[in-house]
């Protein structure tokens, strides 16, 4: 109690020094928390864009499909399989797809295209083509003879909305695949490659085109919380035959995305480490100055019998209180900034926007408001403050009382 009382009064003994120390800690927490919030917001956006709106957080395939993406590795969409998936805890929807490649031709041009057969209803949970339509209209049913294409496909094939698109390819078990589909709409996706090459057909028409009745190449899973993806994947693996099916989480489906995020995260940590060091040495300087100013007083305290550990405790409580105050102020300042840029993402323009679009990302910086980011930054700065205060605290507690009183 006495240690706390002494520490508290000493904190306010030199208000300007305390304010400078609190401010430097608060600014460090503010900068590091806002930076991490921007980074994590960006990663979440990348994941949402690439995973949440195209591949899904998990997928079920026939065993071997991911290594050899051919229709020979497709699987029959049995009711029992779909029921197992739909009834799994945490799965909110199952989105069946059949995917292949074909040559698309207009009147004068032909281009290689990516053909995806989608379930008209359930696809609204994932790609949600209806709201991404740039022109035309969405499919009515799964056996409708129509195609919706990426926004740049029309231009590449030199055709118009309503024109017929000829598709030529190879179906299941080497069958020849040909079809003629009126273009019903165009769609804008965040990924420029898909805008250039995607052709969507209603599921049944795509299965007919590829001579793969009732077959799927993937069943994407919509889950209630992306954090639970590993648990859900494990649960489904336990229920399905691993000889026939493979169940993969998004991290496995897109390892390059995971690695990209990790590399970027590490580079962010390096910048943060520099910031932490600058702050640490600033705090060290302030504390050494404080110890020097109070050397005589510490000498008196040691002389009259204050145990060295009590002196160290008094100083540690003082520094800890300042560090907690600074961290709290830092969190309070950083939260509204991150919250504001979460609601109003920074829209990027120019080359930076183009670069991001080329990577299939939305050209904006959306900050994360995940509480753990702020709490962790405050804890890290708190630990750094305490680590850097070890030297001055030990120095004070090891003072020779006579030398200290001589000044």
């Amino acid at each position, binding site marked *: 109690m006495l240690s706390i009382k002494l520490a508290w009064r000493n904190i306010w003994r030199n208000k300007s020094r305390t304010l400078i120390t609190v401010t430097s800690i608060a600014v460090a927490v503010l900068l590091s928390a806002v930076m991490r919030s921007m980074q994590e917001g960006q990663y979440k956006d990348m994941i949402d864009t690439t995973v949440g709106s195209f591949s899904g957080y998990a997928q079920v395939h026939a065993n071997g499909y991911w290594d050899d993406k051919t229709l020979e590795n497709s699987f029959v969409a049995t009711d029992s399989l779909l029921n197992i998936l739909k009834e799994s805890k945490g799965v909110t929807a199952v989105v069946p797809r059949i995917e292949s490649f074909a040559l698309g031709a207009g009147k004068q041009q032909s281009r290689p295209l990516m053909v995806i057969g989608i379930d008209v209803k359930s696809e609204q949970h994932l790609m949600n083509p209806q709201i991404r339509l740039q022109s035309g209209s969405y499919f009515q049913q799964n056996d409708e003879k129509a195609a919706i294409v990426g926004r740049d496909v029309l231009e590449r094939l030199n055709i118009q909305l309503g024109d017929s698109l000829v598709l030529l390819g190879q179906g299941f078990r080497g069958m020849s695949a040909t079809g003629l589909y009126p273009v019903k709409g165009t769609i804008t996706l965040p990924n420029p490659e898909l805008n250039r090459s995607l052709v969507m057909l209603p599921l049944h028409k795509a299965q007919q085109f590829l001579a793969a009745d009732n077959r799927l190449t993937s069943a994407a899973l919509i889950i209630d919380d992306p954090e639970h993806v590993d648990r859900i994947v494990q649960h489904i693996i336990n229920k399905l035959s691993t000889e026939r099916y493979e169940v993969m989480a998004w991290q496995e489906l897109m390892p390059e995305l995971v690695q990209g995020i990790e590399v970027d995260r590490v580079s962010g940590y390096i910048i943060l480490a520099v910031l932490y060091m600058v702050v640490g040495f600033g705090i060290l300087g302030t504390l050494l100055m404080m110890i020097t100013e109070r050397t005589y007083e510490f000498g008196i305290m040691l002389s*009259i019998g204050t*145990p060295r550990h009590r002196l160290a405790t008094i100083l540690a409580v003082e520094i800890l209180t300042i560090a907690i105050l600074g961290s709290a102020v830092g969190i309070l300042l950083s939260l509204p900034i991150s919250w504001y840029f979460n609601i109003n993402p920074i829209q990027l323009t120019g080359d930076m926007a183009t670069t991001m679009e080329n990577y299939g990302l939305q050209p904006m910086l959306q900050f994360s408001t995940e509480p753990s980011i702020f709490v962790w930054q405050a804890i890290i700065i708190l630990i750094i403050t305490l680590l850097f205060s070890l030297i001055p605290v030990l120095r004070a507690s090891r003072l020779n009382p006579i030398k200290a009183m001589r000044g």
Partner: protein
Amino acid sequence: MPVIETHGLTKVYNPDKVPVHALNGVDLTIEKGEFTAIVGPSGSGKTTLLNIIGGLDTPTEGKTIIQQTELSSLSDRELVNFRLHHIGFVFQAYNLIPVLTAVENVSFVMQMQGRPSKECRKKSISLLKEVGLADKIDKRPTELSGGQQQRVAVARALASKPDFVLADEPTANLDSVSSADLLDLMLKLNEKEEMTFVFSTHDQRVIDRARRVVTLVDGKIDKDEVR
């Protein structure tokens, strides 16, 4: 039984460079209830002697025995604890903790001893009354005069119920009235409580009122006069 005994105390500063002999074999015995002034010119070793008796410094040779405990046999931690329980200190000036009030400064030592805070406060108030500062208990050092601060320091020195009080030039920074008041107080405590006081001083008015005067010259006892 003596409270303080020193045998052949020698203190040499800078023994490897330019040796300075601060003490040269000081043998001194102080009995309970004595009121002893250590006097001598500057550099005669008064402060060094008090520091060694107080366990704040170690002799180059010789030994110090306080209440039958030889200080050199104690570890640093034991020495701190020994000072806390056996010795009261009064320094020249500015020796109070600035952020604590008078009563808290007096309580501080008792709280360090682990005594309950209520008891500490009660005892501190009673000590402050005894030194004539009943109306200043909640004042901080900056709100007290030099003489009042030294009175608080005396109260603090007594708070731990020490075997003796060491005072290094306690009146050096005080005006003549405050010096006389402080000396009256120390004498009163010496007579009433039979508290042993050992203090260094240059002040002739203080020397005149001491019951025993030990004169140091060049680190040796030149004269030991009991009045």
